[in-house]
């Protein structure tokens, strides 16, 4: 039965490779696509030519599942990577047994909907006692650029050449954005008349309006911020809107103090419960 499973894995790997071959664009005139006589050979020798590359393909299958595991674990999907090395050791250094190597790395991939391309250089210096590896240059290109919070974070990461923090914070940033989107969508679905997402579910703004109390509006701004240390934190603010008359009647200054009370509510109930209670409180008449 293990042989069968190995065959399944090998077939899956071959299918993946063939799919990729179908996706690759044809270059006009050039022989980027080489003629494949061996394809014919493959049809004929179904079992014999296959036996020798069976190990190769099952090995590939194993590697692909390792890759899938890592991309699920880190939330980062690396699609391409290459490296070039340049030996900077000169004769003077060699005499002192110091070796210097400059590595140029290129890495690209995506974290959910955000794609990135990185180019960085690492200088490795090996002397008698130790080996030091320092990132000497880091360039990050990201898209889409609609997340304004990210551009500042990216410049900071480039400045500090902090590659690990870049990936770690990116992972948490995207997780928070996805969570925010799911939460907004959940509330829109549950209270379709009251909840409005004027900039879409992927934005930072959710508006709560009551059909019975036009003129009153609760605007919730939910930003995902990355601080100096690379920590990702949600920051929620409440902006209530009310007609002039209501403000005059508001002797207890409920509206004025609403933003602060909201922060306290968040601390006590957490994000989802706080938002739910806000919606319910504004729209009690609607849902009675």
């Amino acid at each position, binding site marked *: 039965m293990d042989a069968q499973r190995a065959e399944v894995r090998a077939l899956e790997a071959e299918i993946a490779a063939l799919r990729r*071959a*179908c996706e690759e664009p044809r270059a006009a*005139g050039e*022989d980027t*696509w080489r003629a494949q006589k*061996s394809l014919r050979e493959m049809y004929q020798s179904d079992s014999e030519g296959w036996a020798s590359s069976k190990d190769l393909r099952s090995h590939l299958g194993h590697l692909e599942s390792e890759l899938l*595991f890592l991309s699920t674990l*880190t939330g980062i999907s690396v699609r391409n990577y290459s490296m070039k090395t340049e030996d900077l050791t000169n004769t003077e250094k060699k005499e002192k047994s110091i070796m210097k190597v400059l590595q140029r*790395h290129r890495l690209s991939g995506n974290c959910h909907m955000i794609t990135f391309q990185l180019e960085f250089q690492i200088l490795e210096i090996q002397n008698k006692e130790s080996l030091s590896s320092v990132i000497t240059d880091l360039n990050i290109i990201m898209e889409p650029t609609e997340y304004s919070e990210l551009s500042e974070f990216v410049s900071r990461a480039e400045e500090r050449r902090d590659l690990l923090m870049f990936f*770690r914070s990116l992972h948490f940033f995207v997780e928070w954005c996805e969570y925010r989107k799911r939460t907004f969508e959940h509330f829109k679905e549950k209270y379709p008349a009251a909840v409005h997402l004027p900039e879409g579910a992927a934005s930072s703004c959710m508006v709560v309006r009551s059909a019975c109390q036009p003129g009153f509006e609760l605007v919730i701004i939910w930003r995902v911020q990355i601080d100096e240390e690379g920590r990702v934190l949600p920051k929620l603010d409440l902006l209530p809107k009310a007609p002039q008359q209501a403000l005059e009647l508001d002797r207890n200054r409920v509206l004025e103090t609403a933003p602060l009370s909201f922060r306290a509510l968040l601390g006590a109930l957490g994000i989802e419960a706080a938002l739910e209670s806000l919606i319910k409180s504004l729209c009690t008449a609607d849902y009675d």
Partner: protein
Amino acid sequence: MEWANDGKSKGGVLAHLERLEIQVNRSRKNLEDPQRAQAVESALGTKIHKLRCLRDELRAEVKQRQARVKASTVNVEPDQTLEISEQEVVERRKENVKAILQAYRFTGLSGKLTSRGVCVCISTAFEGNLLDSYFIDLVIQKPLRIHHHSIPVFIPLEEISAKYLQTNIQHFLFCLCEYLNAYAGRKYQADRLQSDFAAFLAGPLRRNSLCNLLSFTYKVEPQGQSFPFCARLLYKDLTTALPTDVTVTYQGMDALSPAWEEQRASHENLFFSKPLHQVFTSFARKGEKLDMSPVS
């Protein structure tokens, strides 16, 4: 640090590991239950048949594309067109995947699947300096178990695994990553102080193994008239590489002049906000500037 509370990512990693666990159990079960094994075998046989059909379809499609490309490159001599066998395609893909797996160390977490489960490697860095990496070998069983690891004993591994290991492997590993990176950063700063700025220290640098309590006596100018200050740095938050408590004191009998008191206070601020070795680099630079000024 706040965690985004969702079951999706937990499902992803844990589900994957569970699938691996199922595979291990399956092969064990098959030895025990031949009838069940037969049923599974015939299911596999069907699957293989389906995959073979799909593969043949794809091969045909690829062949068609070949024919189309060939038709459009009529002038090219057949012997000039290079051939790559299907084996080479797989080889190239394999090399690509291997390289990508290596590149994962730059994300902070990389690893290998093992016969028992997975061995995860956590890399650390501080300000662009790539530092030590640590590994943790996990066995996929219920409950999830740590087989062995290279995490230093003063990192609260038991605490972190009690909190997260069984419920969310991803959070467990990211949390460990935080602690290890912060430790590596603190250690790097202390090492640099000892090696690069020994001239400024009037006495040994006292440090604990977690590098979160440092105390030392230093002079702003190595050979000069400045007073020695005593500094005590405490890093209560083990996930940061900057201190939470700083005290700089003067170990003398006389009171400090206002100018020196100002310096003492500014030093305290410096230690709070900048990495240790950078603070001393700025002392060194100021010292160079002072050398250039005329003697008053």
